[in-house]
């Protein structure tokens, strides 16, 4: 089966975020004063084969721990899009 996983990697709250600050500055300069904070992270979309949902999830978890995120500075969250048996996939149930 083919799964689609979304990995969200963010800087830990204690780590300052130069990119986020710069973007916030840019938004303020554009007149969007109501923005209080911006945090910049990564959004990785993986397509992978696995026997079942559990296997897919544990593989992505492993990849993220090993490579996709750096535990010294980053947190992560994984969302697995389960291919809905009724096809369609796209709008398929979002389960985390």
């Amino acid at each position: 089966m083919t799964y689609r996983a979304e990995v969200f990697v963010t800087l830990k709250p204690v780590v300052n975020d130069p990119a986020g600050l710069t973007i916030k500055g840019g938004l303020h300069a554009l007149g969007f004063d109501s923005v209080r904070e911006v945090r910049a992270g990564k959004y990785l979309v993986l397509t992978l084969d696995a026997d079942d949902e559990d296997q897919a999830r544990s593989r992505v978890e492993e990849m993220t721990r090993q490579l996709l995120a750096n535990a010294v500075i980053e947190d992560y969250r994984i969302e697995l899009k389960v291919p809905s048996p009724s096809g369609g996939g796209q709008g398929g149930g979002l389960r985390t």
Partner: protein
Amino acid sequence: MNTGIVVFPGTWSDRDCAHALSDVLGQPARYVDHREERLDDLDLVILPGGFSYGDYLRCGAIARFAPVMEAVTDFANRGGLVLGICNGFQILQEARLLPGALLRNASCEFRCEWVNLRVEQSESAFTLDCRPGQVLRIPISHGEGNFFADPQTLEAIERNGQVVFRYCAPDGRVTAESNPNGSLGNIAGIANAHGNVVGLMPHPERACEDLLGSTDGLALFRSAIHALDRVAV
């Protein structure tokens, strides 16, 4: 001193390091391919600057898994001298051979310019020839050199004397204005607890000839030669 200069896909400063070692210092040096697994012939391993694997994901994140890195880890654990410059520093941190991480520069811009470094620790393998407090003029060239460590780690590396270089003013004062990238404590380079592994953001190999503006970078390589002499004695 037999030096190995590791070349990853995307490494840029390998040739500059070879130039500094062989042409300027007259020391034997060879390139080490990222797939090599044996470093037995070497006294010093340099991980040079560049943008291994395009700096995609995080600088150094993918290079850290190259086969050669297992050998580098063994080499370091056996007391071999390892110097990580710029991207090499980032790789050493990703490989957990050095603590902390390097974030985007606070300005969010790439910076290529001359900086002044104060030598904080003259006992590391790469600063034996320096006096504590000595100021070296060496260029930086990076977009992600903003040193970060969590408070406990930072406290520990400060306490253990693992901070080797700090960005400073020409007269040696450590000031906010002399910090080019937002590094915590103006940290420009650190060592492991044994002092045989050092990583720094500035490029000493670019400061080895008067013609190019400074010879202060030679101190690091000369220190390594002396460190080896010491071991040999």
